């Protein structure tokens, strides 16, 4: 029951799916429920849409299998955010539960205090909560009565004694004028009003508060000028959100509705027709998603968030199969897929830094599985980041059970990530407590798939997160430094750049070929070489070849600069020299020259020769030789040749980048 957003199915499969689903429908309409179920289940493996889950639930209800019906009704939550389907699924789940067919779940008393019509929101919340094992007992205040209920300590709210209070409020509740001559005063007063409501609740009740943040309106009369006017409502709503975020203590959680309304599209979030008709401040089609986000935050408030991410390796952390493709063959670091896997690893590391435990579960020989961690320069996740590393040929459900035991956490703390649908299905079937995130086929969308999984939500930073706090501090210091840096030199120094310069390695060749093939701006000669030619340079002792990787305090930029030179007597002639545009203006070129000078000295060359061949795009590199002390020796209509007298001038030195030359 646990998992799977529906978006993973490809259009091709959904076409054939719908034919199969129609076959199931036909069987169902003839009363052949068991046969229909067989067809539906097969389809649900491929593309578990909400509609399909609901059909399965109804079929099971018809044959009297209420536990199965309830489970499929809950599966709707993971299979899409269609309001009508959720509505029907809740009705069905409720019927099954009232027959005693469903496990009870953890009981939580929730008071829903709202300033708009929440009749439609209520069933969404109930369904989303059951999905995470929470059985909500709900109290709803009368329409628009949230303040009265809070301020009157003899109200039904206080008699109900909720464990959680949900403040479902919206932007129009804010007491802010459309334009304020004194915005700071108005913002402070409005934040104080909400703070008083929170405090009244927390004083009168032993409860936690979940507060829906205010959605900044998208219809803005001041237009773009509003971004500069703190006194217009647009700016004040943002300021109140920030102020409330700062005021919220540990027992108040805020659902960042503005972020997710933006994600969803504010034009859909706010439908004036339904507001005018029925005071629906949140459009119906956004309610399922709002419910899932609200429950994720509520769940975190109860300390029930998921704790551990169990990762597959091949085609999950890198492209390809390490045991077959080898270290140089896997896709990681360069190319579209290679960059996507790096981005995915970096996203995972961010999760780790907020307290998520990382584990590996891979079908591989252990030595093969470890290899990229030990040897691949573009691996972001290191062995140190992995709390438990399991690579063997046992079935994954068995491994996952043992891993939970070894980590001493419940199976319901685990989240399983695997590109292989067969493994995902095995986990779903044999260890249903584990949540499964289905990865889409295209690794470019892996980060998005993971970001849409909501149950890693945390309510506060714990002690283990101190490292993250340090990071914040570092950032703050950077901002300070940037302010203080009065000269460019200060700025370079503040970046704490580190470079590693190496001869070309087999592992780096694809990235080097890519840079040579596409770099246009900082490219002195724009000579394009294929892999075979590069391999020939590597083998030829008369060639010097340098590849530079750059890292600073904030990011690892990877392999960003390449230089190829040919020895000609006692002159070292620069054939190719280029640099990725993301590191232009950071003195990287000086480090390259410094390293080249050292090589030249070792080879007993007396001078360096450089050529600049102008193209439409490389003007910015035209004066680089002049800048570093080369003398012009020839000019053939813009094509220039330069000489650097190494013996007399000594090596170029760059003090801004700490360089390790290997």
């Amino acid at each position, binding site marked *: 029951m646990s998992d799977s957003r529906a978006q993973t199915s490809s259009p091709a499969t959904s076409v054939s799916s719908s034919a199969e689903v129609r076959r199931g429908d036909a069987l169902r309409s003839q009363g052949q429920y068991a046969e229909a179920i067989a067809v539906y289940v097969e389809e649900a493996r491929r593309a578990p849409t909400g509609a399909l889950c609901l059909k399965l639930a109804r079929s099971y209800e018809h044959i009297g299998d209420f536990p199965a019906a309830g489970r499929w009704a809950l599966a709707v939550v993971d299979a899409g955010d*269609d*309001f*009508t389907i959720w*509505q*029907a699924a809740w*009705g*069905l789940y409720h019927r099954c539960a009232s027959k005693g067919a469903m496990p009870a779940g953890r009981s939580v008393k929730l008071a829903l205090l709202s300033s708009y019509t929440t*009749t*439609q929101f209520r069933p969404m919340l109930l369904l989303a909560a059951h999905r995470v094992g929470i059985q909500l007992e709900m109290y709803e205040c009368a329409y628009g009565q949230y303040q009265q209920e809070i301020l009157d300590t003899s109200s039904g709210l206080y008699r109900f004694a909720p464990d959680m209070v949900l403040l479902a409020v919206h932007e129009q509740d804010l007491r802010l004028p459309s334009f304020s001559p004194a915005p700071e005063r108005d913002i402070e007063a409005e934040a104080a009003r909400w703070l008083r409501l929170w405090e009244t609740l927390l004083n009168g009740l032993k409860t936690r508060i979940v507060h829906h943040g205010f959605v900044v309106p998208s219809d803005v009369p001041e237009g773009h000028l509003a971004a500069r006017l703190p006194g217009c409502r647009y700016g004040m709503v943002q300021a109140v959100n920030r102020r409330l975020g700062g005021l919220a203590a540990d027992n108040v959680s805020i659902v960042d509705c503005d972020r997710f309304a933006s994600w969803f599209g504010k034009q859909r979030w706010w439908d*004036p*027709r*339904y507001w*005018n*008709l*029925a005071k*629906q401040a949140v459009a*119906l*089609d956004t309610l399922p998603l709002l419910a899932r986000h609200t429950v994720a935050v509520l769940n975190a408030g109860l300390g029930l968030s998921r704790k551990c991410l169990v990762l597959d390796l091949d085609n999950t952390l890198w492209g390809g199969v390490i045991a077959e493709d080898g270290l140089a063959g896997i896709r990681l670091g360069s190319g579209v897929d290679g960059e996507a896997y790096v981005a995915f690893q970096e996203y995972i590391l961010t999760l780790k830094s907020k307290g998520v435990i990382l584990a590996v579960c891979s079908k591989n020989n252990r030595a093969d599985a470890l290899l990229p961690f030990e040897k691949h320069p573009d691996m972001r996740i290191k062995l140190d980041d992995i709390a438990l590393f399991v690579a063997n040929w046992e079935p994954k459900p068995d491994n996952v059970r043992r891993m939970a035991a070894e980590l001493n956490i419940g199976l319901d703390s685990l989240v399983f990530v695997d590109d292989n649908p067969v493994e995902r299905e095995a986990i779903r079937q044999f260890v249903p407590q584990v949540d499964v995130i289905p990865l889409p086929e295209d690794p470019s969308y892996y980060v998005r798939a993971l970001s849409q999984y909501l149950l890693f939500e945390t309510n506060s930073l714990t002690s283990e997160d101190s490292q993250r706090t340090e990071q914040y501090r570092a950032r703050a210091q950077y901002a300070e430094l940037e302010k203080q840096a009065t000269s460019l030199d200060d700025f370079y120094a503040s970046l704490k750049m580190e470079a590693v310069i190496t001869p070309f390695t087999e592992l780096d060749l694809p990235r080097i070929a890519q840079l040579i093939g596409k770099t246009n701006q900082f490219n002195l000669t724009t000579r394009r070489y294929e892999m075979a030619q590069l391999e020939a340079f590597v083998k030829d002792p008369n060639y010097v070849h340098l590849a530079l990787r750059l890292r600073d305090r904030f990011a690892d930029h990877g392999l960003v600069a390449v230089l190829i030179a040919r020895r000609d007597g006692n002159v070292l002639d620069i054939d190719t020299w280029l640099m990725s545009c993301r590191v232009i203006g950071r003195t990287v070129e000086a480090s390259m020259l410094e390293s080249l000078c050292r090589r030249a000295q070792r080879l007993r060359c007396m001078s360096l020769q450089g050529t600049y061949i102008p193209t439409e795009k490389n003007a910015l590199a035209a004066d680089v030789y002049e800048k570093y002390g080369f003398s012009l020796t020839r000019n053939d209509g813009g094509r220039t040749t330069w000489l650097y007298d190494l013996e007399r001038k000594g090596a170029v030195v760059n003090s801004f980048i700490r360089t390790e030359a290997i």
Partner: protein
Amino acid sequence: MKIDETELHDRLTAVFREVFADDGLNLRDEMTSQDIVGWDSVTYINLMFGLEQAFGIRFRGNELAELRNIGEVKRVITARISA
């Protein structure tokens, strides 16, 4: 785009059955909220939303408030589809 009478009736019936959770519900043009069990202000909103989704249309704001019987619902949907 046009939609024929039978198709409209069938698709409409499917939405009503979904919203009112009644697989045996059969519609007639003269039916009003009085004739359908569970038709109240809440299910009415769900119904309007369900129809917009199912037919890929948007009612005008005032139409949302004015639809009184099945015949009217059909007339407005037809108008919106061919608009």
